[in-house]
């Protein structure tokens, strides 16, 4: 039994060491985390609203300094008409030029975890509205580095629990080993 465990530990140690030492490029870009919320459009003749309720409050508390928000509206504004866009009743912009896609910068302080987009227009066939929230991760002070002791303690507890469980599993395997 001992040499088997020794073999397993030795090979695992080598693989772990290799996986740390060998060069590897990141699997995903670490500079940006994005969330976007899309809603179907409406044909506006007066006022139309869309309410987004599922935004994480974290964006508006400690992440606000690293967060940018963009509103994308698709659907042509009819010629000679105009449309005004409001976020949570804050006036954002009045659009006049007819084009298929409008991308507007939204100040973070206009939004909250429940954000209502309101558009007033006499004639605008809006196909979709999309609120895109981006956070520039390197700008955010990482929470875990500030709470390193909690993370290390958690890991230690985890290792202890796994050690006890592993002993139980090994004991459970042993009778099978003897009959094999």
């Amino acid at each position, binding site marked *: *039994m001992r040499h*088997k465990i020794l*073999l*397993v530990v030795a*090979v*695992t140690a080598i*693989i*772990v060491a*290799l*996986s*740390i*030492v*060998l060069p*590897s*490029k*990141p*699997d*995903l870009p*670490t500079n940006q*985390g*994005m*969330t*976007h*919320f*899309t*809603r*179907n459009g409406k044909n506006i003749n007066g006022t139309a609203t*869309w309410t*987004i*309720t*599922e935004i*994480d*409050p*974290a*964006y508006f508390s*400690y*992440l606000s300094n690293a967060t940018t928000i963009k509103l994308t509206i698709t659907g042509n504004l009819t010629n000679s008409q105009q449309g005004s866009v409001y976020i949570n009743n804050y006036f954002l912009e009045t659009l006049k030029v007819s084009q298929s896609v409008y991308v507007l910068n939204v100040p973070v302080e206009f939004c909250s975890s429940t954000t209502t987009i309101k558009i007033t227009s006499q004639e605008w066939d809006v196909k979709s509205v999309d609120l895109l929230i981006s*956070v520039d*991760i390197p700008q*955010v002070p*990482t*929470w*875990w580095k500030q709470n390193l002791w909690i*993370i*290390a303690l*958690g*890991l230690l507890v*985890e290792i202890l629990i796994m050690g006890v469980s592993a002993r139980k*599993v090994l004991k*459970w*395997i042993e009778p*099978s*080993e003897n*009959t*094999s």
Partner: protein
Amino acid sequence: MRVPAIKFSKVTLGYMLAIAWVVSIALSPFFRHPSDVPTWKFLGEITFNLRINPLPYTSFYGSCWLFTILSSYPTYLIVSLFRASDLFLNLILKVPIIVGDLIVGVVLFKFTKSKLVTAMWLFNPFVIFVSAIQGQFDVLPTLFVLLATYFLLQRKNLASAVSLAIGIGFKIFPVFLLPFFIIFSLKNLGRKATLKYVIVLVAVVAVLFAPFFLPQNFKYLFEGLSDLPQRSVAYVGSSVSYIEYLTLQLHFLSNYNFLYVFIPLYLALFFVSKKFVKDFNTLNLSIIVVLLLLFVTYNTMHPQFLIWILPFLFIEYERNKRVPVVLVSALWIWMLVWIFSWNLGSWVVGPLEPFFANASTGANNQLLLVSSMNFSAYAFACLASVTGLLRRVKLASSKRVRYLILSVSTLLMDLLLYLFYGSSMIFIPVLCFGLFFPLIVLSFGEGNS
């Protein structure tokens, strides 16, 4: 000098486990699924770096996989203080999955006392591919369903209830097996024990799903079902919820497979099982039948799902010799073909799919359709085999003739589907489904008697 030959009978379970661990652990840092493993990384990153609630992004699973990721991630964080390495992250995220593989091997040995079956699981290229190479966690719910079965057989019904609840906490499919566990418990342990079983199961499920019951998360359990607006997140596709997956995305009216095939057959199976499920063999059979039924009717079938059924097929093979190895091998082969067409479009399987071929998108849907039709034909053959339907079939007396029919039917079906995919000639899928499909299934007849 002559090297003494090692006899298989001398190889202990411990050696097999050690070798399986070494093989899996050696492969795991250097491979990963193109989108899922980065998703696990993303979940760790938003939780530990940004303190953003990760639950909405994994709401189509239970909470157990999220807990597993968040338990593994701190090891990566501590190591990243010295050197951040994605290779190490690949490894550390896969460790619980690889341990799950090994324990499934042990439980299979406990069930069958067969080292061959244990080796067929531990050194199965498909299992290694899905767990150690891709990093899919399907083995974990499978393990807990297997443990639930094992403990129920040992009359440890509370341990069984806890195991099944954990399985449900990982993925949805164990929910569909629950009625059969209850029937088995009623027949073998009595009403009182079954009531305890159900109470413990519900209590553990409630604890595991407790994060969903927090006010800020509750809607994510149902979102999609209640027709809430679409939500999408970069890196993570989570526009559906656990409940939505549980109902196999019922709100898609085009989900004919589920509405007209799964629901009636599942209900029929349930009512038949009330008399049929008596002992372990029949419980194992009902698990296999439900899972195969899911495979041929589920509208978003993924290759790694086959892992759910493999241990039960091995048990069935060892105990009753009722599932031909050639069928299981065919299932693997088609699932592997499927893996290589992974990013080619929608991953739909089922006999009705060709009728709605235009609904799929993707550059190479012909290949995908061909592999999914083959997989579902072999899954149907497996279904017919385990339920004993094929034992009375005599398509041809000669084995060679039957294999000729099998080959010609498969080839013609594949060619027709590939060449005429998406065309308006509706007779082609009708011909494939009405003639070649049954011929493939029936060609496995007699040989299984």
